[in-house]
């Protein structure tokens, strides 16, 4: 079959991927720099293309709770927002994790705290990977570094969400969301019929027939011992995810003496920095985490035995660096370089940071 190629913004790619993956619903609320997702969906009229429901909610709070309602019926539902809106969704995300429901959330991160800026940032790493809302839970977090990955991670994200009955987040940023690149588009998947939904999700609240007990979707258990047992069950699930779903990319790590650890846009910027460093004879490689939860700790732990040091590059004041330090366990120096508030680090700055903080340090 002829490949279908298109030039698209990252946000548009997410929206098209949602339709093509056979999603049942999208609920969202406008916020820069991700409003293109719902604008694209509304323009596409997916209710005509596939029967997919798209609704602009009255707030991010309402949108995430619509996701809860849809997911609790076994439906494939997705929302997207940017940092302040994602903060508003946290209670709902916690409930979704607590009720073990599958769903997909895209965060096109902008600088904060507060209203911050509409420029790109990676300052929501802690919020995304450590829980975000209340209670002991984790999201599966995917970090796209291209528009193609924005597209591809929608289907991958939905698959993981249903496999583990857990919310999955695509952690993008304003650069990935706004930039245009060539994207290979997959074929249109047919949306599941109601019978298929019930077969895949027998736990869904689709109306209680006489042939089964009623289905209850809740995150409440007032008996402490049972709630504890549930928390431990979640831990088991997260452990399985850590064991099976870690994804990362190694770039020029074979002969590397220095490693840059960077995800998303920062990984793209670090590619150029790596070339500049190699031109100077400094053998540099990149570890690009693709899943931020589960974090690729093992590969970093192993690399620490044969490289001289690590520099994390993030558009934050230093968040992922903590996970890299935990992974490396003080075997080698780990330093952070970042620009924040919507400022994007230049490859030259990254070169300087590595030379000064790691080689010189």
């Amino acid at each position, binding site marked *: 079959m002829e490949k279908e190629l298109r030039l698209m913004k990252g946000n548009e790619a997410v929206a098209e991927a949602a339709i093509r993956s056979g999603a049942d619903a999208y609920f969202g609320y406008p916020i820069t720099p991700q409003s293109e997702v719902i604008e694209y969906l509304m323009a596409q009229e997916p209710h005509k293309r596939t029967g997919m429901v798209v609704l602009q909610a009255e707030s991010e709070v*309402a949108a995430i709770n619509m996701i809860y309602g849809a997911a609790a019926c076994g*439906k494939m539902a997705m929302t997207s927002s940017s940092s302040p809106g994602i903060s508003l969704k946290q209670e709902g995300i916690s409930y979704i994790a607590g009720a073990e429901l599958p769903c997909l959330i895209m965060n096109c991160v902008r600088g904060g705290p507060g209203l911050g800026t509409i420029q790109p940032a990676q300052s929501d790493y802690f919020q995304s990977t450590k829980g975000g809302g209340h209670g002991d839970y984790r999201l599966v977090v995917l970090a796209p570094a291209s528009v193609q990955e924005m597209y591809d991670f929608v289907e991958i994200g939905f698959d993981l969400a249903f496999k583990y009955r857990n919310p999955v987040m695509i952690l993008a940023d304003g650069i990935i969301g706004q930039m245009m690149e060539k994207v290979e588009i997959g074929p249109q998947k047919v949306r599941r019929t109601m019978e298929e939904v019930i077969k895949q999700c027998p736990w869904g609240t689709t*109306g*209680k027939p006489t042939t089964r007990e009623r289905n209850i979707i809740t995150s409440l258990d007032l008996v402490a011992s049972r709630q504890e047992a549930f928390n431990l069950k979640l831990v088991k699930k997260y452990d399985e995810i850590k064991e099976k779903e870690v994804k990362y990319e190694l770039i020029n790590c074979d002969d590397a003496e220095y490693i840059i650890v960077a995800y998303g846009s920062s990984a793209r910027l670090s590619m150029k920095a790596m070339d500049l460093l190699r031109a100077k004879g400094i053998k540099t490689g990149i570890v690009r985490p693709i899943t931020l939860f589960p974090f690729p700790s093992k590969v970093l732990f192993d690399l620490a035995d044969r490289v001289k040091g690590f520099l994390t590059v993030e558009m934050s004041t230093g968040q992922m660096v903590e996970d890299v330090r935990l992974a490396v366990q003080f075997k080698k120096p780990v330093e952070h370089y970042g620009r924040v508030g919507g400022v994007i680090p230049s490859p030259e700055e990254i070169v300087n940071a590595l030379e000064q903080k790691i080689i010189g340090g």
Partner: protein
Amino acid sequence: MAEITIKDIIKEENLVYKKSKVLTNNTMSYCPGCGHGTAHRLIAEVIEEMDIQSETVGVCPVGCSVLMYNFLDLDMQQAAHGRAPALATAIKRLMPEKFVFTYQGDGDLAAIGTAETIHACNRGENITIIFVNNGIYGMTGGQMAPTTLKGMPASTCPYGRDIEMMGNPLKMTELVSHLAGTYYVTRQSVHSPANVRKAKKAIRQAFENQKLKRGVSFVEIVSNCNSGWKLPPVKANEWMVENMFPFYPLGDIKVDGQLVTK
């Protein structure tokens, strides 16, 4: 003489009333005399009589009725505080052939969930909203609600609701009746047999309306909270008649999409 057993007394032909099969056998967790139990029973009976148990999805709130899913033999979702109408919106839009209802207290529906309530009503979602207004936060121990009457004491207004300091009680039901997306808006109570019958009729109407796809059917049930009001059940009902009904008058407010003129 042979002993008369219960089976001799309760013969099929003598049976005038029995527990709805949509109610489970679980013991309800409500305080004795609380209106929540009666409201649950009416919903169960309506669903049984309409024969829609397998086509109904309910959403329970955060409040005393948070465990409603233990008492109704239905597929149910438990919502975050105030968000039930958002869940119901999605459920109904994704399964338009199902009957979808929310059951919410006044703190849930008229305070923290005001936005979700107004917007679901304004969009005209084809759902049924059952709103139990007891003028207080029952579950958390009797704090002031948006519906707490002027001068009425609660644990966060121990000297009575001071309008200047705490604002006015909110008539959410009148408010939503003015939104184009509501089709049926009514206020009922369940404190006497006559009122129970009327309330049941209203709930039935509110479920039947979903077949018409004309928007939200909204049933307020003015109810008591013996524990929060610190009154024994009978006294609580008397207090409700004397104080709640004048401010929250019973009766239909909007029927067939038209405001009722009095």
